[in-house]
Every structure is written in C-alpha cells, then in structure tokens.
C-alpha cells in the first residue's frame, strides 16, 4: 500500500486527475448551495444573455442560468457514472467469479454470453431498450450498467483462473471451506486491484454514454438538467449563443479526462512492470 502511494504520487498527471475528480465531486455534492440561480426557473427578460458577472456562463433560450444548470447536471452525470459502474461491477464480478471458479460448462456458458453481448454495438442496443422504457435517471443507470459488465467479467475470470490453483486457496478448500467462502474471503480480495482500475475507467465511459443518450433526447429528460441535455437544447441556438453548448461540453471533457488520468495512474502504480516505465517519465534512464 505504501509503495502504491509512493508510485501514485510520483505520477503528476494522475495526482492532477485525482484532485480534479475530487473537486468535481465536491461541486456536484454542494450544487444546491453553490448554484447562484434556480436551475429550472425561466426568465423571459434574460433570454440568451452572454456570459457576464451575474451569469458567469450566460443563460439559455428561456433565460435559465447555464452555470446553475451545469452544477445540478454534474450531480446527474456523476451519479450515473458511479451507480452504473456499481451495477456493472456487481454483475461482472459475480459472473466472472462463477466462471473462473467453477470452470467447465458454467465457464463456457458465461463466456459465450460475454462474447454475445460484446457483438452488439452499445448505442444500438441501448436505443432498442430505451425506446420502450420510461426514460429516467434510474433507467439510464440500469441500462448502462446492464450493458457494460463484460470487461469486468473477463478480468475477474482471468484473475480467478490464475489464483485458484495457488496454495492459500487450495489449503482453505482442503479444510472444508465452502465455495462461497473461498471466493469471497480468499480469491476476490486478491483479484480486486484490476477490477478497481476497470471501475475507475468505467466511470468516465458511463458519463460519456449518458451524455450521448441525453444529447440524442433518449436519456434523462428535460427539464431535469444534465450536461447532455443542456447540450441538446444548446445546439438549437449554437449559432447565436455558443456558451450554452461550449461549457457543458468542456465540463464533460474535463470530467472524463480527470477520471481517465486517475484510472491510468492507479493502474500504473499497481502494476510493478508498468511502474518502472512510468517512473521513467520524470527522470529518463534512471
């Protein structure tokens, strides 16, 4: 753990990524306190006013404050990111452990299911499902979670295959520990590192996906503010009011970037083989 921190801290980009993601999370959590205006209150006297001291990011076509809407949108984006990754991790870990631990037919069946799910282009599958569901933030979290567990399942399975022959596993089996106990107490804790990395990298992917769906109009529905549907409304007026579209896009970019840097940083710090080369970024040829 100590060496992990040392390696992580040496990676400047990863530290920056971590700091930005913490800041964004704080902004999202305190949005109701921070937002200078009511995110949903229209004001006919202030339609499409450009950014100024009063409205830092300007107002949209019905006079709502873009900054306040974005702060509230951050809550949605981050919540979708975290919850859907939680769902996909739960499914992925469960199926991956079952496949890796049991082997045989269970393994073959689960892995064919993974192959099958991976053949579907994600957005097509999501559109097909969302067409018949009532769009809400919960639906979006669920459908993103249910369509993104395959990578985690493969990872967990691979870890299990490597770990299940090791002495500590075999010895706990030999004293009669139940399958569940062996998986839960002995193998999983040792398999969590790559899963954590995958989860960290899954958050920005889910955020991008949510914003794309909301942008298409099939995600979280207005007047609920999310970065994707602020952009969706902003695109109608982009020729006269760039600020309605530019700022939410930048927010998505910054969020995804920071989580990606964080995730890659964690991975490099965990993987001793990569740690070496990552360390060399600072001082070459050490």
């Amino acid at each position: 753990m100590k060496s992990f921190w040392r390696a992580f801290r040496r990676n400047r980009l990863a530290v920056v990524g971590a700091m930005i993601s913490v800041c964004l999370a704080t902004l999202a959590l305190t949005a109701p306190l921070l937002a200078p205006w009511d995110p949903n209150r229209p004001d006919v006297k202030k339609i499409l006013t450009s950014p100024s001291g009063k409205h830092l990011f300007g107002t949209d076509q019905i006079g709502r404050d873009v900054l306040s809407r974005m702060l509230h949108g951050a809550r949605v984006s981050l919540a979708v990111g975290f919850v859907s990754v939680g769902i996909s991790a739960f499914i992925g870990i469960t199926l991956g452990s079952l496949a890796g631990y049991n082997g045989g037919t269970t393994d073959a069946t689960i892995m064919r299911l993974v192959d099958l799910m991976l053949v579907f282009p994600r957005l097509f599958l999501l559109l097909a499902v969302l067409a018949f569901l009532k769009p809400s933030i919960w639906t979006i979290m669920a459908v993103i979670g249910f369509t993104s567990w395959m990578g985690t399942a493969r990872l967990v399975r691979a870890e299990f295959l490597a770990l299940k022959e090791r002495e500590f596993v075999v010895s706990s089996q030999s004293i009669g520990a139940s399958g569940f106990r062996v998986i839960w107490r002995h193998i999983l804790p040792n398999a969590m590192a790559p899963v954590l990395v995958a989860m960290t990298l899954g958050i920005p992917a889910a955020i991008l996906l949510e914003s794309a769906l909301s942008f298409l109009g099939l995600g979280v529905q207005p007047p609920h503010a999310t970065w994707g549907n602020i952009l969706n409304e902003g695109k109608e007026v982009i020729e006269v009011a760039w600020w309605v579209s530019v700022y939410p896009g930048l927010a998505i970019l910054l969020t995804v970037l920071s989580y990606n840097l964080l995730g890659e940083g964690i991975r490099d710090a965990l993987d001793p083989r990569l740690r070496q080369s990552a360390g060399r970024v600072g001082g070459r040829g050490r």
Partner: protein
Amino acid sequence: MLAYVLRRLLLAIPLLIGITFVSFVVIQLAPGDPTQIPGENIETSKLAWEQLRKEYGLDQPLYVQYGKWITRLVRLDLGRSFAPHGRPVRTMIAERLPVTLLLNIVELLIIVALAVPIGVLSATRQYSTFDKATTIFVFLGFATPDFWLALLLMILFGVQLGWLPISGLRSMNWEYLSFWQQQTDFLSHLALPILVATFGGLAGLSRYMRQSMLEVVRQDYVQSARAKGLAERVVIGKHALRNAMLPIVTILGLSLPGLIGGSVIVESIFAIPGMGQLMVQAAFERDYPVLMGNLVIVAAVTLLANLAADVAYGLVDPRIRVGRRRR
C-alpha cells in the same frame, strides 16, 4: 489455416442465433408494448387494442412469437415498419446499410493508416516531444464527447468559415452538377462526419500501437536484428512492426462495435441517412419491427467484421498460417 477458419465459423453460428435471441428478448421484455403507441389514437378502445395485438400476433406466447419471427428472419423478411408508410424493414435497411458501411470502412482505413505510423513513431522516440504531444492528443481524444466535437466543427467549418456542408450526403443542386462536381460534393459532405468519427478511434488505436511496439522493441530478436547490422529502418519497419501489428489486428476487431455504435451519433448530427439515424428515429417512434431488424443486422454485420478480423489475424500470424495450433 483452413481448420482455424472453420473453427471460427462454427463458433460464429451459436453467436448468430444468440444475436437473434437477444434482439428479440430485449425488445419483448421491456415493459412498454409497441401497440401502446403514444399519439393519434390515445382513445383506442380495449377491443381495438386487442385486435391490434392479435393482428401483430402479440397475444401469443413469447416462444411462438420468436419462432414465427425467426422463420421469417431466415427468409430475410423483417416485417413492415409501424410508421404510416408501412414500408418493408428490409428495404429500409437495404437503403441505409451501404451508407453506414461506407462510412465505417473509410473511417477504419483512415484510423489504421494514421494510428500505425503515429504509434510506431512515438514508441521509437519514447518521451520525445512528438511522443508527449501524441499522449496529450490521446487523452483528449478519449475524453472529447464526439457529439460535442461534431457541433463545434459544424459551427467552425460549416457556419463561420462556410467551407463544408453540415448535413446530408448531397447538396440540393446535386442533379445539376457535372460528374466530378458530384463526387467532390459527396466527399465534402463526408469530410466532417469522418473527421469526428475517426478522432476518438485514432486516439485509442495509436495508444495500443505505441504500447505494442514498446513491448516488441525490447525483445531479443530485435536486438539480434540490430546486432546483425541491419539498418534501423529495416529493424523497426520489418522485424518489429510485423509482430507489433499482431495484437493490433485483435484490438481492431474488438473496437469495431464501438466504431459502428458511433454511427448513431455522427449520423444523427450530420443528418446522414444511415443505420444509426434510422435507429434513433425508430426509437422515438417505438417502431419495433425496425428496431429489431436494425439491431439484428447491425450485430450480424459486427459479427462478420469480427470474423474477418479473426481470419486476418490467422493470415498475419505465421503460427496459425502454417497450420500449427495456437497454445
């Protein structure tokens, strides 16, 4: 090699059946019913509604419906759209699939043509300015929402500068243009969509290419090629590149669904009449024969493309090409 290809083909058959199954289940199990179409006839009486359900066979058990659907599917009969025009889904898809395929193939070619040299250069000049610049580009490419990039480019090139058209595939006056003008017109319509679609994929693939190359150049046989006195160009371009390309072929196959999925965004923004745009329209109209047909075809095309990638892998990997089994 032949055995390898056959094995891949055999593995694809259960996947194909699985595709039809998932496409069917995903749409049937969703709580909404295609006959509950919001719009004109909200006041539909219960009787009329039952009749509608009967007409589309929705009152029968699911396995009967699946059986019927699949027997029609084998004959490539995908049913008719629920939209007022009621056109056969097969015709609608046949009109749109070529556009989406064309876009994706061009994108793929551009991505490979650029990502391989970028990856090789940044690997051989690790930590150089070029390498750092591409790393920044890669992270930006991963993080930029494609729909946002599309919007910005539309405004910049389409509206502010007025250099490129921003929607559709042809100009209004297309019929009156000469042959070459028509081609330029078509290409100029494709420029922005392709630029947007290649951006993210390029970042990913060049990253993998760099990684793969970095691993290969540390191998002993690369050192021995150098020790033989071969020119660096030959060492990298021939000995190292060949082996570094192997994982890239696999990665390419794996990234295909993502690329094709991206057509949804690009086609809706640039109003390109392809599969992605059709899918979005059908989702809004709850046009379930179109949704199901589209989903099956897109997944089957992805499966085929994956198969092609597998075969390509077999061709470039001598361990498979000469017939010895892989580990």
